[in-house]
Structure formats: structure tokens, C-alpha cells
């Protein structure tokens, strides 16, 4: 796998956070955002090319360079706008993979129109519950700046078929579990093609780790 080009419509809190995470993993990110204040914040972070404008307008949308884009994620606050953005993008670029954010848990209602739906408020609520009811926590929100990645080794990747002893990971990263997930990784654990591993990474080395596992 090489780097992906990802267009994020909506550079508010969710969109900006997503852009940062994707940039950390070494992808090429474009953000479309209308509000000058939000554009200023994005500009400071310098993680994405920014198109300033209303993403529901096709003339703005096509400036993101959809022809080479792998995934479009519509992450504004409004379900309606997000749907419109995904449909307009599909119209401009039929084979585009689209992800839309919704305000409510919508189930499979939009499956015909978009590839994936994400209910970010649900994730936020779950994170809050994790802090309130501390005994049982879901994995994705127990960590601060540390990311726990579930990552698959692809063919031809630099680490494919090698043992942990043979490779060097950047400081700030750790392979936690072996392929089957039933034992903690050991020096002789082999990173096999097609198998998935749990890796803990600090955000500034995420792109190196993703490159090593996915090429």
C-alpha cells in the first residue's frame, strides 16, 4: 500500500482531528472548510491542503482534486449537508469511496448512497461513559496521545515475513500482540503477510510504523 489521498469536507473539531490523525499515518489530506476561523486553525497545523469554500458546491468540491482521491469523508455537523456532499462527489467521481458523519444513529438507512456512516456523537458518548464507569472501558478511548492500532501486514511491506528481532521500530512504538491475539509479542514473533497485529504508537511516529507494515 502506498499513501492515500483523502478529502475531508468540514474542518471543524471532528474534521480537523481526523486530518491530523490521517497526516500522522502518512496520508495526503485535503480539507474543505468555509469558516475563516476554522481555516486559520487548520492553516496553523499545516497537515492538509485547504480549500476554502462550501463543500456542497460542486465548483468547490472539484477543486479538491477528486480524480486521484481514494476516500471522501463528509464530517460537517449536519447530516443533510454530509449526504449532499457525498452524493455530489459520487456524481463527479463515481468510483469514490465515501464516508458520512451523522447526527443520529441511523442504522443502515443510507447504505445505498454512501459506503460508510460514522456517528461521532455515539463515539463521544461512549468515551464519556468510559470515564464515568471506570471498571470496564472500551479500548479506543483509554489512551491519551497513544494510539492503539490494529494493523495488517501487507505483501511486500518492509517488515513482511520478518521476526521482531530482525526489525527496528522507531522509539515510541511497540508491537503488543502476535497474530492470533492470544499471546504477547516476543522477539521471535513473525510478522506474517495478511495477519493483523496490535501496535501501540505515539502519534509522531505513526507514519513510519504504517509504512513499515503496509509499505
Amino acid at each position: 500500500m502506498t499513501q492515500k489521498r483523502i478529502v475531508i469536507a468540514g474542518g471543524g473539531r471532528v474534521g480537523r482531528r481526523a486530518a491530523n490523525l490521517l497526516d500522522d499515518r502518512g496520508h495526503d489530506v485535503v480539507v474543505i472548510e468555509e469558516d475563516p476561523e476554522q481555516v486559520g486553525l487548520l492553516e496553523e497545523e499545516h497537515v492538509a491542503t485547504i480549500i476554502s469554500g462550501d463543500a456542497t458546491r460542486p465548483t468547490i468540491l472539484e477543486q479538491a482534486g477528486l480524480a486521484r482521491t481514494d476516500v471522501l469523508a463528509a464530517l460537517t455537523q449536519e447530516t443533510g449537508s454530509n449526504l449532499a456532499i457525498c452524493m455530489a462527489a459520487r456524481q463527479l467521481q463515481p468510483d469514490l469511496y465515501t464516508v458520512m458523519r451523522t447526527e443520529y444513529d441511523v442504522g443502515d438507512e443510507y447504505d445505498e448512497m454512501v459506503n460508510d456512516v460514522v456517528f461521532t456523537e455515539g463515539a463521544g458518548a461512549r468515551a464519556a461513559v468510559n470515564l464515568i464507569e471506570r471498571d470496564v472501558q472500551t479500548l479506543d478511548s483509554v489512551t491519551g496521545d497513544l494510539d492503539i492500532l490494529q494493523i495488517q501486514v501487507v505483501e511486500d511491506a518492509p517488515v513482511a515475513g520478518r521476526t521482531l528481532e530482525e526489525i527496528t521500530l522507531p522509539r515510541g512504538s511497540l508491537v503488543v500482540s502476535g497474530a492470533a491475539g492470544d499471546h504477547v509479542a516476543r522477539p521471535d514473533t513473525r510478522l506474517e503477510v495478511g495477519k493483523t497485529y496490535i501496535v501501540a504508537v505515539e502519534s509522531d511516529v505513526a507514519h513510519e510504523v504504517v509504512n513499515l507494515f503496509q509499505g
Partner: protein
Amino acid sequence: MSQREPAAELGLLDATMIGMGAMIGAGIFVLTGLAAEISGPAAILVFVLNGVVTAFTGLCYAELAASIPKSGGGYAFVREIFDDLSSFVMGWMLWFAYMIAGALYALGFAPNFLEFLHVYGFVPAPGQVGAVTFGVLPVAIPAKVALAFAAVLLLVSVNAVSTAASGSIETIFTAIKVTILLVFVAFGFLSAGGGGETSFTFQNFDPLFPEGDGAFSILPAMGLTFIAFEGYDLITTVTEEVENPRENIPKAIFVSLAVTVLVYMLVVTVAIGTLGAPGLADAGEAGIAAAATSFMPPIPVIGNGGAIIVFGAIFSTITALNAVVIASSRVAFAMGREEQLPSRVGNIHHRYGTPFVAILASAVVMLLSVGLPTKSAGNMSSLFFLLSFVIVNGAVIKLRRERPNMNRPYKIPYYPVPPIMGILLNLVLTGVLVEYLLRTDPLALVLSVAWILLGVVFYFAYFRETGSAERGGQKTADTGPDSTTDAAGGND
């Protein structure tokens, strides 16, 4: 599973020094003599005017680098807006420009290194050093080529197994180079009025232009020395490592360019004022070193004061070589990541963490091209930088037209004048250089055309084999988890 340090962040000073480090070193030490040979004392104008020409392209780089946060130099910007074939050709040319620059710096290193040994009496004068003969091999390799080959091999190996040679260490290197050049300038001016044969005098600038050719003789010299100003592209190959890049990258580009032009003016003035243009031309790649040896006073311990400058030349060419080894591998790495070269080129090494394959691929071309004459290497490298920069200027115009709403934290003043001037002036120099090569160096021209043809053939063969240049294959594959309603997310 051992661990290694991740790359450090670069500040404004580091970014500026990266740009200056790549420019100062090769251009000034290696090419001053050759420029004096073509255009006489007007070599001083050559460096000033090249600074002006290149400033237009520098403005374009500043706008692009501030808006597009991608490492990969000019290639990354061109890739953003041009189609697959155009951006491939651009990357292919820029990659070659850096590799040939590597050969040029290695070839500049060798005679200066021999001069250094000569100062201390280890070997005869550079011109009289014979060929290196190997007992087992029936061929004799000139000492210069053997040394250049060894230098490339050393730096490629270092960069292939360690990321330590890149980044902020460049700051220290560049500071040393500039200091040594300032010492040279100071002693050069102090020698004025000393009455010696090579004391500084403005009489050496009269007549300014060589007889017969007139003012136009500076054009081919400008083409040859254009490579001495490619540092801003190097700054943009490390964009992602620079802190506060939207402000620091444009600043680093302008500051490094301004300081470099100033340093060049001073150094060339002193070199011509002391040694005279003919003497400088005779010394060729070791021109500055020869000038220094002629006027530097003896210094305790070191002996001949000129040795400092010769050391500066060795140090500068070797660090510039280091910089272009890194730069060429970054361009190839970026092309691999974009699937415009086999994707293995875009992988980092499983143990060393370096763009290993990209470095090795670059090394092959560099090692092969140290067999070229220095002048041919300089000409070819300049030619490819000129052509690449034409396309980068074009990318600014194309992006402004097709993506008017793209956020531009730095905007070129008086748009569209700078990119248009950049395109025109770079094309004029390209034309002059090609015409000059037709007359004097057809080999360089043939090799240049051959490289572009090789690229085009590779492009069509490679993309026919892999199916298509599009990433369609991946889109249908199950990337991402299936319909993850309220999946992973932060505490937003």
C-alpha cells in the same frame, strides 16, 4: 526489537541552513573557476543575475510550500495539479538533477582533496597526480574519478543505514562553510595594496567581459552555474519536518537565497580580484582553493593559511554531496509513495528506517555519472533543474486558475508576473545552455535526451504492466472497517 530515535523537528534556522548548505559548497567552490573560464571577470555578474532569475522561482516555491504540506520538493507540487505523465516526467527530471548534482559535487571534492594533500606535500600538484592502478585490474582509473567514486559510496552507505546524517546536523556544517568563506573574503580584501603578485586589485576586473564575445558570454556561464541556486527545492523536500512551516518555509527560502547571493558576490569578487580571471580559469574546479593558497598568510600549526580554505572546499563539497544524496532519495521516495515508481522505492527499511531502496537506486546513477567530465555534470544538472523549475512555475499558474479557492497562506506579490518571468527566464537559460552544449558538449546533451526517453519508455512499460496508473484496484478492496457506526473517535 531495538529502537531508534524518530527524526527531530527543524526550526527556521535549520531550514534556512539546509537550503544554504545545498547551494554553498558546490556552486561556489567547484564552478567559479569554470564560470571564469567562459565569461572572464564577468563571472561576478553571472552569480548576481542567476540570483535574480532564481528569485522568481523561489517566490513560487514559497507559495506552493506554504499551501501544500507535502515533502517531495517540486515534484509534490507538480503532482498535485498536473496529470500522471507530466508529473512523472517532472519527478524523473528532478531526481536526475539531484543525482547528477551528486556526481558534480563528488567530482568537485576530488581535486580539492588532492590539493589539500598537495599543500602538505603528500602528493604532487593536482595536475600531476597520475592514475590509480589496481594490481588485479588491467585498467587505470584517474585518481580524481576514483576519489569521487569513493566519496559517493561513503555517503550513500552512511545515509542508507542511518537517519542521523540528515536534519539539524546540517546547520553546524553550513555554519562552518560560511565561516571559512568569510575568512577567505576577509584575507582577500586585506591583501589589497600588499604589492604581491596576487594582492587584491580591481584592475583584474578590467575589461569586465572577455574580448570578442561581449556581454552575451555570461549567458552560457549562467546556465552552467544555475545549479548553485537550487537550495529552495531542497528546503521543500523536508517541509513536514519543519515547525510552523507556513511561515518558516517562505522565510527560509528567501533568507537562504539572499544570504547565498551575498556570499557568492563577496567570494567571487575576491577570487577574481586576487588570482585574476585567467588564473581562476586555469585552476578549474579547485579555483577558490588556488586563489586562497596564493594570498593566505601562514598560520601557526596549520602551516599554509590556504589549507583552511582548501579544507573548506573539501568540507563544503562533501556536505553538499550529503544533502543531494538525501534530496535525490526523497524525490524517488515520494514518487514511490505516489506509485509513480515501483512502490518498494516508497518503503522505509525494516531495520534502518531509511528510504533504503530509493537511496540505492539513486546511488547507482550517481556512481555511474562520476565518470563524466565535471563540466558536463554541471551542465546536465543545471539543465534538469531549469526544466523542472519551468514546470513548478507552471504549477503555480495552473493551481491559481483551476483551484482559486485553495488556501494560500503566502501569496506571490504582483502575481502573475513572477511565475511568468520565472518561466521565460528559465527557458531563455535552457535555450542558451542547449545551444552551448550543441557546440561544446554534445555528450551531455545526448545523455540528457537519453534519460528523458528512458523515463518515458519506463513509464509506459511500467504502467501497462501494473494495469493502470489509477489506484482503482485499491478502492474496491475492503479498505477500512465495514459500516462502523459510532466507531473509533476521540473525546471530541
